[in-house]
C-alpha cells in the first residue's frame, strides 16, 4: 500500500510539472499584455523606459524558462506571488474564494451521486416499465443540455417567474446555512444534473448486469429479502464502473464550475480565473490551474483507493 501511494505521488509530481509548464507557456500566447493589469488603463502615461522597468520588476523580461523556474521554486514553498490586478497575495485571494468553489462542486457532486445512482438503480429494477422509460429519457435530455443553458432556464423559472429562490448572492454554509442553501440550490442543480445523468446511465446498465449474476440467484436461494439482495449484494458489486465515471466527472465539475460561478455571480475561484484570464493575471491563473490539477489528481487517487475498498479482488501492492 505504501509503495502504491509513493508510486502515485511520483506520478502526481510529474503530472503537476507537465500541467504547470504547459499552462505557463500557453499564457504567453494570450493577446493581453499583463502590463495593462499592472499599471491600469492609463498606460499611455508611461514612457517605454518606465514600462521596461516595471516589466523587469515583475521578472517579465527574463527568458521564459527562467521565469518558469522562478515561479516554480516560489510556488512549491508557498509563495504564489501577487495578483497583477490589485497587488494582493494570490494565496489570500484563494483562501477567500476557494470555499465557495468547494461548496459548489461538492453540492453538485452530491446531487449527481444521489440522483444518478438512485434513479439508475430504480430504472434497472423496473426495467422496461414507464419508470425506466422516464428515467432513461430524462437522462438523455439532461446529457444534451449545456450547463449555461440549464442555468439560465433555472434562473428564469425559479427566480424570475416563480420568485422562489434568489438569483444572486452567495453565502458559505457554515456562516449562513439557510441563505447558503437557498442561493446554492440552482447552481448545484445546473452543475450536478449532467453528472446525475451520466451516473444514472452507468448505474442502470451496471445494476442490470449485476442482477443477472449467479450470486444474486444464490442470495435469493438463501432467502435473503429482495431489498437486501439489491442493496447489500447487487449495489456494491455494480458500483465499480460507477465510481470510475464519478472520478472522471470531477474534472467536468471543476470546468463547469467556472461557467456556473459567472452565471450565478458566485465569488469562487472559477469566476476569479475568468477575470484573471482577461487581464493576463499570470500568478492568479497559475494558482487556479494548479489547484484544479491537484483536485483532479486527488480525485483519481481517491477513485483508485475506492476500487480496492469496494472490490477485494483489487488490492494495491
Amino acid at each position: 500500500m505504501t509503495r502504491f501511494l509513493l508510486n502515485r505521488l511520483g506520478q502526481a509530481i510529474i503530472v503537476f510539472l507537465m500541467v504547470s509548464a504547459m499552462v505557463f507557456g500557453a499564457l504567453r500566447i494570450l493577446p493581453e499584455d499583463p502590463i495593462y493589469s499592472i499599471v491600469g488603463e492609463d498606460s499611455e502615461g508611461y514612457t517605454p523606459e518606465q514600462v521596461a522597468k516595471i516589466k523587469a520588476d515583475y521578472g517579465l523580461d527574463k527568458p521564459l524558462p527562467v521565469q518558469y523556474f522562478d515561479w516554480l521554486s516560489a510556488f512549491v514553498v508557498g509563495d504564489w506571488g501577487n495578483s497583477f490586478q490589485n497587488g494582493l497575495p494570490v494565496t489570500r485571494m484563494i483562501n477567500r474564494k476557494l470555499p465557495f468553489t468547494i461548496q459548489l462542486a461538492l453540492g453538485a457532486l452530491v446531487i449527481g451521486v444521489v440522483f444518478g445512482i438512485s434513479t439508475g438503480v430504480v430504472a434497472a429494477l423496473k426495467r422496461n416499465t414507464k419508470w425506466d422509460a422516464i428515467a432513461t429519457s430524462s437522462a438523455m435530455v439532461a446529457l444534451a443540455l449545456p450547463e449555461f443553458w440549464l442555468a439560465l432556464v433555472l434562473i428564469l423559472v425559479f427566480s424570475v417567474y416563480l420568485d422562489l429562490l434568489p438569483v444572486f448572492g452567495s453565502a458559505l454554509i457554515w456562516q449562513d446555512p439557510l441563505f447558503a442553501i437557498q442561493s446554492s440550490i440552482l447552481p448545484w442543480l445546473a452543475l450536478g444534473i449532467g453528472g446525475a445523468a451520466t451516473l444514472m446511465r452507468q448505474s442502470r446498465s451496471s445494476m442490470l448486469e449485476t442482477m443477472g449474476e449467479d450470486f444474486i440467484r444464490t442470495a435469493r436461494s438463501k432467502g435473503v429479502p429482495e431489498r437486501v439482495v439489491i442493496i447489500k449484494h447487487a449495489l456494491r458489486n455494480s458500483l465499480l464502473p460507477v465510481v470510475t465515471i464519478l472520478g472522471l466527472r470531477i474534472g467536468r465539475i471543476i470546468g463547469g464550475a467556472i461557467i456556473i460561478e459567472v452565471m450565478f455571480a458566485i465569488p469562487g475561484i472559477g469566476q476569479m480565473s475568468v477575470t484573471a484570464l482577461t487581464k493576463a493575471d499570470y500568478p492568479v491563473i497559475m494558482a487556479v490551474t494548479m489547484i484544479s490539477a491537484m483536485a483532479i489528481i486527488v480525485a483519481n487517487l481517491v477513485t483508485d483507493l475506492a476500487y480496492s475498498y469496494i472490490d477485494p479482488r483489487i488490492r494495491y501492492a
Partner: protein
Amino acid sequence: MTQTTHQQEKLDVASDTVLDVRNLSTQFRTQAGVIKAVDNVSFNVKEGEVLAIVGESGCGKSVSALSVMRLVPTPPGEITDGQVLFGGQDLLQLRNEEMREVRGGQIGMIFQEPMTSLNPVMTIGAQIAESLMIHKGMSKEAALDRAEELLISVGVSDARLKMDDYPHQMSGGQRQRVMIAIAMSCEPKLLIADEATTALDVTVQAQILELLINVTQESRTALIIITHNLGIVARYANRVNVMYAGKLRESGSAIDVYKKSAHPYTVGLLGSVPNLMASTEGKLDSIEGEIPDLSNLPSGCAFEPRCTFAQDRCRTEDPSLQAVGAEHIAACWEAEKVQGSK
C-alpha cells in the same frame, strides 16, 4: 400434531415424503415462441432419500429445481400449472414473504458455477452467517461462530482463516464446500444440488459428491442431485428420474433404471458414460441427432427422431408414463423391447 395430520390428509402426502411435485409445468415466453421447459412433471422425494434427475442440457431438469424454489426468472419464465407440496403446503400458493422463509431455511440449493455463485465482495464467513441471521435470528457473532463450525464440517481446512477470505482466494472445490455449508446451514429438510459438481475437476467431483451424501445422510435430509452424468450418481442415488425435452421419461430405483432401462434415451445416456471396464474399440457411444427445438416439438414422442427403436406410432402419439416394473415407470411404446435388448 393434529394440524399436521389434518394437512397431510388434505394434501394426501405420505408422511415421510418431503417434496411432492405434481403435474408441474413451466414455460418461457421467447421471441421464438412459448417454450415448455417443464411439461407436466411429477416426482417426489422422501426423507433421507437421494433422488437423481438426469438428462441433457435443456431437458428441463434445472428449471424443475428452480420452479420448486420459485426462482425461475419471471418474465420470461412462468410456472403455468401444478403443485409443489412441501411441509404440508403448496409452495406455489405461498406469498413471496412465506416463500422466502422456505428458501434457505427449509430448502437449500447449490448451483453449478462455484466461480460465480458466491458474492465476490463479501467474505466467506459473512456469506454463511447471512442465512443463519435471516432464518435462525442469530446475532452476528453467534452466526459467525456457527459459520466457522459449518466450514469445518464441510472439510475446509484452516476454517478460522478462511472465514475472512473472499471467494476469489479459494479453489473451485473449496467454494463448492462453502456453498454446501451455506445450503446446509439452517438444517433444511431438502437439499437441491443443481449440477453441483459439473464444473469441478474429476477428482474433486467425487469428493464433493461424497460430502453432499455425508452431510445429508447424517441429518436425514432429502437430496436431489441434478446432473447430466448418469455415471456419477450411480453409486449414490436411491432413485433416478430421466428427463428429456421437458418431460419425465423414465423413473425408478437406480438399479432398475441402470439394469433394466425401459427408455431408449436412458439406454443412450448410459452408453455415453465412459466405462473403464467396457472393451469397446475406444470409441464412446453417443446419441445421434440433437435435442429438439422446445418451441416446436414433434407431435409424437419428442425422442422419436433420435430413437433407434422408433415405430410409426411414435411419430404420431406421445407415450405416457406406464409401469414397466415395480416402482419403475417409463414413457415409451417400445419399453418391453428396449428392456429386452439389454
